[in-house]
């Protein structure tokens, strides 16, 4: 496996050089919505939207796929660069923008309306307050998008959302059918309640799914044809 840190840095520089305007527009959009909404409930949506941009040059037109595939860097370097963008740069941009939006709201409220800080802003947004449980949900979700965007040639993010919904529906239907035949009715649920699962099992399942899709994404990248 060929790995050169300079080439990864060059890939990141190239990415930022190409997409800085897109990133800036996204930041401004997040700041605006956060300032208007004044809460962090939108966090999940920002993350989902951002994750659909994973491997954006691969999950695009054939023309762009040819360019990135032919760029002299190894598959591992291209993978690690995408990993950095999606798992570090995007979350950082989103969090900075979310807090930027909240701070903007704070200044507007205090300066324009003369309100006090505690009346307008929640400094313990939900995204931070239950960090562990958030990570347990986000990590597998991100890894699924990460894989989907390299596996599919176009609209990988949307396709993965569709597959996740379809899979959830399938589980629900199977669950309902089993329930119907066993109990003769649909009054009880066979779905294991989240609270009843031991914490360590949640970690194993969450990180297991995450690891599985992250490895699968790398294998898909090495097998990607244009």
């Amino acid at each position, binding site marked *: 496996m060929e790995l050169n840190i300079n080439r990864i840095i060059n890939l990141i520089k190239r990415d930022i050089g190409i997409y800085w305007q897109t990133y800036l527009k996204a930041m401004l959009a997040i700041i605006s919505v956060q300032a208007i909404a004044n809460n962090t409930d939108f966090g999940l949506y920002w993350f989902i939207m951002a994750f659909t941009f994973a491997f954006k040059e691969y999950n695009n037109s054939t023309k762009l796929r040819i360019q990135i595939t032919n760029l002299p*860097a190894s598959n591992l370097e291209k993978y690690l660069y995408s990993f950095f963008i999606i798992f570090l740069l995007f979350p950082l941009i989103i969090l900075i923008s979310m807090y930027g939006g909240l701070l903007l709201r704070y200044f507007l409220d205090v300066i324009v309306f003369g309100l006090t800080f505690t009346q307008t802003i929640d400094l313990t947004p939900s995204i931070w307050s239950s960090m562990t449980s958030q990570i347990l949900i986000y990590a597998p979700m991100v890894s699924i998008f990460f894989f989907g965007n390299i596996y599919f040639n176009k609209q990988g993010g949307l396709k993965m959302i569709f597959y996740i919904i379809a899979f959830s529906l399938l589980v629900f239907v199977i669950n309902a059918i089993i329930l119907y035949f066993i109990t003769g009715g649909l009054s009880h649920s066979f779905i294991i309640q989240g609270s009843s699962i031991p914490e360590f099992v949640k970690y194993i399942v969450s990180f297991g799914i995450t690891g599985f899709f992250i490895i699968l994404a790398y294998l898909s990248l090495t097998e990607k044809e244009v």
Partner: protein
Amino acid sequence: MIEINNLKFSYKRNKMVIDDISLNIEKGYIHGLLGKNGIGKTTLLKLMAGLLFPNSGDIEVLGYTPMQRKVGFLQDIFFLSEEFDVYKMSIENYVKLNSVFYPKFSETDFYNYLEEFEITDRKSKLNALSFGTKKKVIIAFGLATHARLMILDEPTNGLDIPSKAQFRKIILKAMNDETTIIISTHQVRDLHNLIDSILIMDERNILINASNREITSKLYFGVEKDISNIDNILYSEDNIGGNLFVKENRENLESNLDIELFFNAVFHNKEKIKSILSNNNK
């Protein structure tokens, strides 16, 4: 330089695009890959560039297996696809962000090639340029990488007439003993006086692989008002100046290769021309 053995490739099962091709391409020459539309030229080039993986058979390019996409391999090939996307950035920035990946890249050469193409504004936004101008920038970039293998798929599509002449001039200027250029096109006149050897693709396979010298030593290209008395004519077509014809060159006459005429002759008289060219006695 490029060795292909028993290569097979299909996009869908039971529909071979490349069927058992074996081929050897020598370094230091400009090779023209000709063929009708949709015959598999781009597919073959993509297989050479590691963009597609063969179903079976071997490809070795510059000592590498293309599908492994090793960094050394990618640094030494430049693939220009027929159509391409450019980013919203200036020419200057494009070079700054992409040239770092090519150790042999020469900025001086790049801007010299641009000048030859009469592109002087380095700050022009790539996405705002015409298709032909964008193509010229990418060609200049490719040549400035000093890659040992340049694969150009329909490079003259979208170029105006003066630009086609500039293209030929620049390609010849960039050539040296270590560089190999493969140009795929169906516009055979654009390659006039440019290529050293010709590869013609037919349905799923290579029909002809011969150098210009080999071709003109075995075939004679001429023009006559009346061709009724000429023996061994393989193909002829009417032209304003008379009849253009290709005949077997039994008399060792000298003539200039007319690529378009040769191409038409090959498709008109495949087996005969193939057998003449594969005859090593001459």
